Each structure stands twice: as structure tokens, then as C-alpha cells.
């Protein structure tokens, strides 16, 4: 501005809107503003309104504080989320460590054993655990056959924790892994030449460098667990009711919007507070794999304390490793980790596979092992108009969702890659926000909005809701390929005579094609497996596959569910393997 004032000789040009890269994020911003920010804000507003008069009121929050049951649910929710996050980190760390040490090619293959469980439908996984943990389930059969006691693992806290950890473990591992693979292998060699035994080198060098990944994994698993309801509803008992279940009850049975809003606000504030805390300590940018910025120099008391503790751990474990090596020989240490990894991978993969024989059972009950085999339950599924229409709707909605999410998310990712550095943080945070806000909050907010717009029980409503949830996944998939994309190629294309659009079409798109298709497939899976929005938005006849499964699982377990589970598992795994292939080759 001041420059223009000092150069009056230049005729003033009319202001023209410039289509900078930031505009590419505009569709995403608009979509999320209307279908994400607005409904969530509305829901929070409802929690502060008096249901009769509409005046500002804190009734809902007071009720939350004064009724025992709600405080207890709050406590249970925190307890389960914390335990789940901790167990996922502790169990997952060695697996992530093992994966990080593998040569690249082999890691690419082994990681599928984590990626497939990650994307496997929560409903399928939970259904499998019901078969495994039940009073007459697989584990109790094995226990009885071995003359062991009857195990009480279903409808109590043990059952919930097993199911929750099983659900969150892949997320924890997949979040820790990129940070771990980013650690320079030469640092370990350097520590070795400087005199550090392997155990000390691990604690003093490797472990602290892997901490940002651990923290990010802790954050994501904790937040996801907070809003979870499938596992506690199906594997827990009355004493394991979590906050999200309470929200569902308030809406579906009581239609108490104000109180549901207050509960949602509680969930949201907890999630955001956790994020804020994380950002203060580690910096949110480390979630995207960028190096964490650290405040202050090397003199912080906390840092001193941490380094001191690591020193102790190093000395202790080095002594232990030496002792073990002396007693059991050096071979044991080398077999310990692979042995553990095998056990953990069995825990991740095996329960889901239990569904397979049940689906082909000839019995009318969920017996294991099945008394005989047949395809009866697939026939039931295929001849049921309810199941078939749900299946078709799921496919259709998932397809539409994937298309929209890929376009909007892809443009957003392009904006992220090309916009000025100071805008990047905002774009990144905005597009990922639907992942941080508990799904139940988004779903209830959308339900309220859609009720007014007449979108409840419509395919359009479902598609919009699913797009909000799928957007972050599509965005990340495209952003990942763009991160390694060399934009000088576009400059080269420009010097060779291509305009911006031509360069995009002829150079950029062909090179990032793999990432775009992967984005589509990830968005597809997200929608295909989505339950939370479907519970509220798909009513009566317009049900989706997960919604139909959920209803059946609550009412009456039957082998048809196993057949449907197999269908869902096969569809998702096939799409997923396709996406992984493309992501790698792209």
C-alpha cells in the first residue's frame, strides 16, 4: 500500500480478485462451515437454552453436575479411555519398533497385518469378540476343554477393555510408525561407536526421538476412545456405560436436546483440551510428521528430569540385558521381540477370522466350532429385502461420498501444498477437525440440522454426513503424495510453454494419480463402514448396512450377522488392498 503511494506515476489498477492457491480450499471450507461447524455450534447452543422458553440457561449443565449417574458415567468414560490409550501405547510400541527396524520392502508387507485390522469394521470386530468372549464362546470352550475355570469376559470391564484395545491398537501403531521410521539409523550406529551398548543406545537416543509419535498416538487413541459407543454397548454391561451411549439415549429415547448438547459439549471440550495440551507440549505440526518445534533452550527442568529418568532406565536395562545374556545366552534377546510381535499380530488378526466359520455354519446358533457347514445364512442374507436394500444403499452412499470427499479434499490438499506457509496450519487444522471432534457430536449436530432441512432419512443427508467424516482421510491421502511431489516440474512445464491448467492436467495429475485414487478408496471405506451418523440420519426404511447390523446385534445375535460380516470384511479388505497398492505405486 505504502509503495503505491510513493509511486504516483503508475496509474492505479482496479482491484481484481486473485485466484491464489488458497481459493482451492474454499469448497472444503464452505462445506465444513455449513455441515460441520454450524451443527456442532448449534448443538452447543442448545445446551445453553431453556427447552421451554429458549432463554439462556445452565439447567442442563447443573443436572449433569447434580445427578450421580452422570458423574459416574463421566468417570467411567475417562477411566476406559485412559486405560485404552495406555494399553494401546504399551502393547503397540514394541510392534511399531519391530516394524520400524524392518527393511522397507518387508515393512510394506508386514504393515498390512496392522492396516487391515485398522480398517476392519468396528461392528465386525465387536461381533467377533462377542463370539470369542461369550459364556459359551470360543475362549470358554477352550478353557473347558483344558479343564480350566469358566471365564467371565463379556458384559464387564474386561470385555470392554479387550474390545477397545483391539480397536485402538492399530491406530496407535500406525501413528507411532512414521515418527519411528524417520529416526536416522546412523544415530544408533553413532551411539554404538561412542560406547553405548544396544540397551543404552535405545533408551538414550531412540526412545526420546520416538516420543513425538507416542504422544500423537496417545492423543488420537484417547480422543477416539472418549466418543466410542459400539464396544461398550455390545461388550460392556450396565456399569460400563460411556458418555456417547448416554447421548444416544438422550436423543433417541428422551429427545432431550439440551441435555444431549451438554453431554456433547463435555466430550468436545475434553477432546479439545487434550489437543491443546498436546499442542503446548509437542506442537500439533508433529502430527503431520514435521519436526516438533521446541520452546526454550536445553535447561528446562522437565527436560532434565526426563533425561535423568532415561539415564536410569538405560543403566538398569543395560544391566538386565547383560544379566539375561549371561544366563540365557544372546539368542533369547533376539527371539523375545519377534515372539511378542507374533502374539500381538495374532491378537489383532485372529478374532476377526473367527467370523468366517460361523458364517458357514449349519446351526441356528453361534456355536463354535460349527456342527456342520453350509451356505444357508448367505442365502438368508441374499433373499432378505431389508439386507439387500441396506447393502445397495451403503454402496451408493459410499460411492457418492468418496467422489465428493476426494474432489473437495483433493483441492484442499492442493491448497495446503501451494499456499503460503502461514496459511498451511489453518488449512491443515480445518480439514482434519472432523477427525478430532468426536463423531457422536457431529452426528447429533447433523441430526438437528437435517431435521430442520428435511434431510433426515434421505440418501443425500447420509452422503453429506459421511462426507464430513471422510474428508480428513481423503485430504491426508492426497496431501501425502503432494508432499513428495516436486513442484519444479510445473515450473519446467511452464518454461516449456504449458499454462497452469495444462501443467496440472498433463504433469501433476498423472504423477499423483495413485494418491487420488487411494483417497477415493479410503473415503469409500469410511462411508461404507460408518455407523454413528447412520444411527441418527438413516431412519426406518432407509437403513445402511452397518445400521442394520447394529440393530440386529442389539436385538438378537444370529448367524446372518456372521454372513454379513464376512461380506463387509471382504469388501473393505479388497478395497483397502487396492488402495494400499495404489498408494505405494503412486
Amino acid at each position, binding site marked *: 500500500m505504502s509503495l503505491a503511494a510513493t509511486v504516483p506515476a503508475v496509474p492505479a489498477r482496479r482491484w481484481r480478485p486473485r485466484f491464489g492457491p488458497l481459493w482451492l480450499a474454499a469448497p472444503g471450507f464452505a462445506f465444513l462451515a455449513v455441515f460441520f461447524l454450524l451443527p456442532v455450534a448449534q448443538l452447543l447452543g442448545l445446551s445453553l437454552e431453556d427447552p421451554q422458553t429458549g432463554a439462556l440457561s445452565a439447567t442442563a449443565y447443573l443436572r449433569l453436575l447434580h445427578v450421580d449417574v452422570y458423574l459416574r458415567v463421566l468417570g467411567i468414560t475417562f477411566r476406559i479411555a485412559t486405560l485404552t490409550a495406555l494399553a494401546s501405547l504399551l502393547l503397540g510400541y514394541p510392534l511399531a519398533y519391530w516394524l520400524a527396524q524392518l527393511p522397507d520392502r518387508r515393512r510394506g508387507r508386514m504393515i498390512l497385518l496392522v492396516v487391515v485390522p485398522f480398517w476392519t469394521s468396528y461392528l465386525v470386530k465387536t461381533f467377533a469378540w462377542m463370539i470369542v468372549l461369550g459364556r459359551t464362546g470360543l475362549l470358554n470352550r477352550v478353557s473347558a476343554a483344558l479343564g480350566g475355570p469358566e471365564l467371565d469376559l463379556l458384559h464387564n470391564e474386561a470385555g470392554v477393555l479387550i474390545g477397545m484395545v483391539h480397536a485402538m491398537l492399530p491406530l496407535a501403531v500406525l501413528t507411532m510408525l512414521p515418527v519411528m521410521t524417520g529416526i*536416522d539409523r*546412523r*544415530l544408533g*550406529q*553413532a*551411539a*554404538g*561407536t*561412542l*560406547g*553405548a*551398548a*544396544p540397551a*543404552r*543406545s535405545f533408551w*538414550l*537416543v531412540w526412545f*526420546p*526421538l520416538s516420543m513425538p509419535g507416542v504422544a500423537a498416538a496417545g492423543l488420537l487413541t484417547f480422543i477416539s476412545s472418549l466418543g466410542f459407543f459400539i464396544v461398550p454397548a455390545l461388550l460392556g454391561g450396565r456399569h460400563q456405560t460411556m458418555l456417547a451411549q448416554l447421548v444416544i439415549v438422550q436423543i433417541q429415547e428422551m429427545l432431550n436436546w439440551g441435555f444431549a448438547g451438554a453431554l456433547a459439549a463435555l466430550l468436545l471440550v475434553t477432546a479439545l483440551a487434550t489437543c491443546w495440551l498436546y499442542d503446548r507440549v509437542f506442537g500439533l505440526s508433529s502430527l503431520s510428521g514435521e*519436526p516438533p518445534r*521446541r520452546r526454550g*533452550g*536445553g*535447561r528446562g527442568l522437565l527436560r532434565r528430569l526426563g*533425561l535423568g529418568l532415561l*539415564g536410569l532406565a538405560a543403566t538398569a536395562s543395560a544391566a538386565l540385558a547383560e544379566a539375561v545374556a549371561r544366563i540365557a545366552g544372546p539368542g533369547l534377546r533376539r527371539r523375545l521381540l519377534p515372539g511378542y510381535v507374533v502374539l500381538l499380530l495374532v491378537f489383532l488378526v485372529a478374532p476377526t477370522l473367527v467370523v468366517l466359520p460361523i458364517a458357514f455354519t449349519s446351526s441356528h446358533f453361534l456355536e463354535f466350532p460349527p456342527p456342520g457347514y453350509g451356505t444357508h445364512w448367505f442365502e438368508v442374507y441374499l433373499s432378505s429385502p431389508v439386507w439387500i436394500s441396506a447393502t445397495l444403499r451403503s454402496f451408493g452412499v459410499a460411492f457418492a461420498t468418496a467422489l465428493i470427499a476426494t474432489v473437495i479434499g483433493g483441492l484442499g490438499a492442493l491448497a495446503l501444498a501451494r499456499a503460503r506457509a502461514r496459511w498451511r496450519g489453518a488449512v491443515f487444522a480445518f480439514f482434519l477437525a472432523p477427525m478430532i471432534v468426536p463423531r457422536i457430536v457431529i452426528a447429533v449436530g447433523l441430526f438437528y440440522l437435517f431435521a430442520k432441512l428435511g434431510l433426515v432419512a434421505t440418501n443425500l443427508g447420509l452422503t453429506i454426513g459421511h462426507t464430513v467424516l471422510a474428508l480428513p482421510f481423503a485430504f491426508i491421502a492426497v496431501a501425502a503424495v503432494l508432499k513428495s511431489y516436486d513442484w519444479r516440474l510445473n515450473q519446467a512445464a511452464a518454461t516449456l510453454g504449458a499454462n497452469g491448467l495444462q501443467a496440472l492436467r498433463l504433469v501433476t495429475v498423472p504423477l499423483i494419480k495413485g494418491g487420488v485414487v487411494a483417497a477415493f478408496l479410503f473415503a469409500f471405506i469410511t462411508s461404507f463402514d460408518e455407523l454413528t451418523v447412520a444411527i441418527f440420519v438413516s431412519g426406518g426404511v432407509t437403513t445402511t448396512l452397518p445400521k442394520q447390523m447394529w440393530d440386529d446385534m442389539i436385538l438378537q445375535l444370529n448367524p446372518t450377522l456372521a454372513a454379513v460380516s464376512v461380506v463387509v470384511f471382504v469388501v473393505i479388505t479388497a478395497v483397502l488392498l487396492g488402495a494400499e497398492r495404489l498408494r505405494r505405486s503412486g
Partner: protein
Amino acid sequence: MTDAPPRQPKLVVDGLAKSYGPVVALEPTRLDVQPGEFLTLLGPSGSGKTTLLQLIAGLVEPDAGRILIDGRDETRTPVHRRDIGLVFQHYALFPHLTVSENVGFPLRMRGCRARALAERVEAALAMVRLDHLKERFPRELSGGQQQRVALARCFVYQPSVILMDEPLGALDKKLREHMQIEIKRLHRESAATIVYVTHDQEEALALSDRICLMNHARVEQTGVPQEIYAHPRSAFAADFIGLSNIFRGRVERSAEGRPLLATPAGRFLFDGAAPGAEASLVVRPEHLTLEAEPKNGVAAPALNRVAGEVAELVYAGSETRVLIALPDGAVVTVRLAPDAALPRLGQPVTACWRPEAAVLVP
């Protein structure tokens, strides 16, 4: 270089060998390093020099052979007990530790007491002139500063042998030359035994007491820099270190019975014994002179001559290189002093040298 009585070598590499599947990374190799010596492993990439270094450090297990340090067999000693220092090409500083914590790390591993540790870290950082930056993190330093931290971290615990793996490879030319002087000073002040890996022949000539030239997974020639430069023992050695004109040919005898080498570029006299029926004649560009025109029949008959046209003039500040294209397609390089009269491009010229200035190699 000195006439001191033979001492026990600091480091002996005795028949070390390493293969990765069918690929031979290092043929059986023998190498002695004297206490306080600066030995450079020089060679192109894939010559086995880094493999040899990693074997000495213990980062890679040898297929055969032994490593002796001060006469002790250390072949099977794990890395962290080997008392070796290794300076990495990309520094490998611990990013979560400050400069002084990085430098103190090896002392901590050796159970050094806090007070002594602080003093020695201080001294090491003073030695590389970084004592004012000790509370910084590595990423807050420039490349040259990071490399000096890496050097301090290595010198601080006075390991028996210090290995350096292309430590200046990531720096730009000016800084690299500055750091060469720094490393030379550190070596002199600490009297450390250093094995240095580089592919840069100028760096090797500038730093080393001795150079071990490697090619195709084996040692090509070992010697003091002047010896390797003046008396290369192979065409590879002549070509890799400094500029060389190399003529390949058959050994014959002149009419007077003097040995000479018959090459496509001409027949050249040489001094000394021929290494075989076929040989290569190596002439350094500074030993060639230009004969603008023959001096009326009084041209010294003892000179070797090649005639051709000036193909290119390369100005390099302190000298000018004249590239002469010979009729057989070969190119001969002549080095001229900056004040010498320059020929024109395309001008027919004759380059000549005294037979004793050339070296015959197999």
C-alpha cells in the same frame, strides 16, 4: 617418513574380507597404521573404502580376517566396547541433546564423573572453538559448526583410533578447505591415529601422512602422497590422483638398443625397466612443454614429442591448461604457467618431455 625404529602398529587390518552375496565389497586386505599416523583411504565410490572403515568400526562383521588394535585382537568385540571413534559424513549428532550433551555422551558411557566430564567437554569444545554454543541444539548450528561438534564428540574421549567417513562431503568447497586445516590442526595437537575416507584426491593429498588408494574392492597402492603422485604404480593410480597423460603401447627397442614404447601416438623413450611386454606411459601435464617451432635442426634428440592441434584452452587462474588433439584422436594436456605465451585455438603445436620425467606402469 621418519627413520624411527619400527614400533608396534596402532591398527592392523589382517586379511579382512567382506562379500554381500555374489558382490565382493572387500577383497582380503592388509593394512598397518602407525601410532599418530593420518592414513587416508582414497578411491572412487564402490572401491571398498567405506566397507573397510565399517569393518574396522565394527558396524559390519567381516567374512574373514582379523583386526588388531595395539596388538589385541578386536575382530569380535562389539562396536560399543571397541574404543573406536567414528565421525560420520552427516555428523549423526543426537538431535534431542544439546551440543555439550552430545560431546559428553561418550564420557557418560564410560562412567566419567560429572565434574571431570564437564571439564573435558569444555576443553573439547574449546579445541574446536565452539565453547560459546554449548547450550544450543544441533539444528540451530550451521553445517560447519555441526561438523566441529561431531569432531569434538570424537576427540573428547581419546579413542585408540579415529575413523572419519567423508566428514567434509556435505560442506561446500570453501568451508571444506577451512575444515581440512582444522582437522590437520586437531590431528597435530591430539597426536591421534586417524583413518580418513574420501573420494576427493586433493583432500587426500592435503591431509594425509600416507594414502591408501583403493579400487575394485582392493588396495591399489599405499604410500606417502608425494610418492603416489610421482610414482604411481598403475594407470588407475596415475589417472585418479592428479591429471595424467597416459599412452598405452608395446615395449620395443630402438635402433641403438634403447628401450622404447610403441604407442598409436608415437614411439617414446623411457627410463628404467619395463614392467612387461605391454605398458602405459604416464606423463604429468606440468612435465610437458610446448615447442612452438623446431629450432633449425638442433632439437634435442633425447626428447619425446607429440604433435597435434590446440583443441581447447582452459584457464584456471594459477595456470592454463592446453588440450592438444593428436591425429589418432587422443588428447594430451599441457600445463602452462600463467605468464606463458598462449597458443591459438587450432594452431599446430608440438609437446615434448624428457624421458626421465615419465613413469612406466603395467
